[in-house]
């Protein structure tokens, strides 16, 4: 059974159609790269998966449940890192990590110390003095220390430096090794190429390609130059032509 199964998901904000019949399926235990340009609908899809947004049409299954109806039960089994992490100004990073861990109901002191060390975070600083990257680290540590089946990560590394990007990729692979499913939205192709098993490409609220990394690799080799970028550029152009 897939960890996430979406069929024909549609979401409107007033007149804007943010999602227009999205279909995707995330196999259990895989790292799924969810790629698309800004405004494509990545965050909207993830927020719907969290039951924060109410869908207008379509079917959504998450860990075998309905994200809108069973949100409390499902949230116990997943961890989410938003793309714009905002924290409480007068709390320290350490306090936030402890608080979120206790609220979620699963976290261990050893793992906490280990991830704070790896991400090189000073947990005694107040959140208002953290940069965007540091706030992201707090959210990432909170997600990685939790004992959950599914990680939903929305462009989680936009504020991190290259060194931390490496740590992040390592952590994601370890999570897969521990049997977790990772849903990683991103617009950094090198990141996706480095860690993902499955790929879905979204543009203007529609999926334009879904498949395994293996499949894409063979397609990449037919490109000039043979890079993921070239392949996606191709897809975007074709999709735009079809739209026109």
């Amino acid at each position, binding site marked *: 059974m897939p960890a996430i199964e979406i069929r024909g998901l549609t979401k409107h904000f007033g007149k804007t159609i943010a999602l227009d019949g999205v279909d995707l399926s995330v196999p259990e235990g895989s790292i799924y790269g969810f790629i698309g340009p800004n405004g494509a609908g990545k965050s909207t899809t993830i927020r719907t998966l*969290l039951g*924060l947004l109410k869908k207008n049409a379509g079917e959504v299954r998450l860990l075998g449940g309905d994200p809108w109806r069973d949100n*409390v039960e499902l949230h116990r089994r*997943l961890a*989410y890192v938003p793309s714009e*992490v*905002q924290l409480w100004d007068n709390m320290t990073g*350490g306090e936030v990590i402890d608080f*979120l861990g206790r*609220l979620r109901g699963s976290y261990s002191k050893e793992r906490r110390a280990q991830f704070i060390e790896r991400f090189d975070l000073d947990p005694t600083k107040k959140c208002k003095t953290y940069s965007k990257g540091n706030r992201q680290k707090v959210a990432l540590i909170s997600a990685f220390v939790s004992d959950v089946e599914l990680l939903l990560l929305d462009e989680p590394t936009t504020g991190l430096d290259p060194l931390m990007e490496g740590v992040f990729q390592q952590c994601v692979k370890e999570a897969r090794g521990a049997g977790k499913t990772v849903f990683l939205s991103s617009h950094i192709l090198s990141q996706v190429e480095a860690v993902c098993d499955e790929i879905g490409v979204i543009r203007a609220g529609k999926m334009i390609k879904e498949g395994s990394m293996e499949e894409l690799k063979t397609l990449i080799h037919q490109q000039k130059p043979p890079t993921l970028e070239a392949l996606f550029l191709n897809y975007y152009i074709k999709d735009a032509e079809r739209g026109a």
Partner: protein
Amino acid sequence: MRRYFHGTLSLMRLYMRQNRIFTLIWLLLPGLWVAINTVSSLVLFPTQEALVEMGVSLIDPLTEAMHGPLLDVSVAGFVTWRTKVFLVMLGGIFSIVYMIRHTRLAEEQGKRELLGANVTGGLAPLAAALVNMTLTNAVAAVLAIFAMTALGLGLVGSLAHCLGFFAAACVLGILAGAVSQLFVSATAARGMSFGLLGALFGLHILWNVSGGQNLLAYLNPLEWSLLVRPFAGEYFIVLLIPLVLGTALALLSMRLMARRDVGAGLVPQRKGRAFAKPGFRNLSALAWRTQKGLFLAWFCFYSIFSFALGCASYLMVSAVSSAEALAGLIERLGGIDRAFLSLMLYVFGMLISVYVMMSAGILRREETAKGETVLSMPVRREQLVLSHMVYIFGGTAAILLMSGFCVGLGAVVGTGDKSALARLFVEMARMVPAAWAIGGVALLLFGALPRWMTGISYGLLTLFVLMEIFWEQQQIPVALYALSPFSWITPLKAVQPTAAPLVLCIAAALLAGAGILLFRRRDAAI
């Protein structure tokens, strides 16, 4: 020299181009305020006799506590007396905000690092802010002098008056510049500066109430515009004190700045705790963290203020009783002593509904900013709302009840009438359901129209107050007025239905319930 102050002029020009509306208000308001007061005094007291007769009767203990003694019984003397505290506070607040914005806040936001790195000397930002602040205050003072002389007040007295508030505003600004060298965050610097201003204001009131001469008063900026004696044998020599004090403080702030690194403070930043306290584990604990500042501030302020009001009530009663225009109103409220306090408590109750809206605003901010983080945890949406309802409803009730208790206690201390305590407490307790109904409205808006919640809620509050006024003037029907929660508790109605508290509570519960239901069904964290 060059190393320190290079680029000061270009920074001054840069600062002048920023925040033009702010500067415009700062420049014009003092002159405007003096002009309005002068014109209204000229209308009110067309002759010297009228002034002596009426003006003196307007002076009651409360006004005296605020403004100190009236030095000269003339329109000019009256205007300077009435406007000086306001002018000093106004100039002081603008100067403080300005100084902190261009020193500590700019640094905190990293702007100074950019500027400091290439073109400007280390002290240039502070120097530019100081000079600009002084210049702006000077122009504001000159405009005020123009306004006063144009309306026929004497030049020398006007000069003394305006120099008084100019000196005070500048010294307060310079003080803020020095304070902002000490702290790493702009919030702390601002808090400290306004704390000092508040303390100076408290001393000002204390000295006025106690009367008599006090040598320390010469060091308080709020006293200078009195000590310079405008229109009462001007005593310009006093202004040497601000000159010396201002220069000393400015030099001190420069020294402090030269000695520290960019972004650092002289008071070291404390380290926070690396681990959360064991009890910090649920949404109630989180709501306390986010709501406690607002709640404690209102709670303490209202306790102290209510106690002071209770103590002083008998003074004010004597002042109000002489005003004939209020006789009819007082009659309706059942006698002067009760009338006055009832009315005051009612106004207090209305003011506290601002707290209701503010604490509901915190709930909305928590939802927009941190909703993605919190609502992706295994918590129900209504739990989030309930954790904040403790403050929107419980906090409001606590503030109102404490305020009632303190007014009563103050009245007992002030008048020795022991029955006052219970009576005033109950009177304040009756406001609670109305405040709850307002809270219900806020929650309904939170569920139904989250994006417009803030605007509509303050708009509605204003509307409710306006309805009160229109109803008093009998311009709107009672049925319409009944839509305002305040109409069910106003002391201006001779009798209220006994079911009024029940009606308000039911309305509050229904509105809040509807709000929660709607929140459960809408998109969250948007």
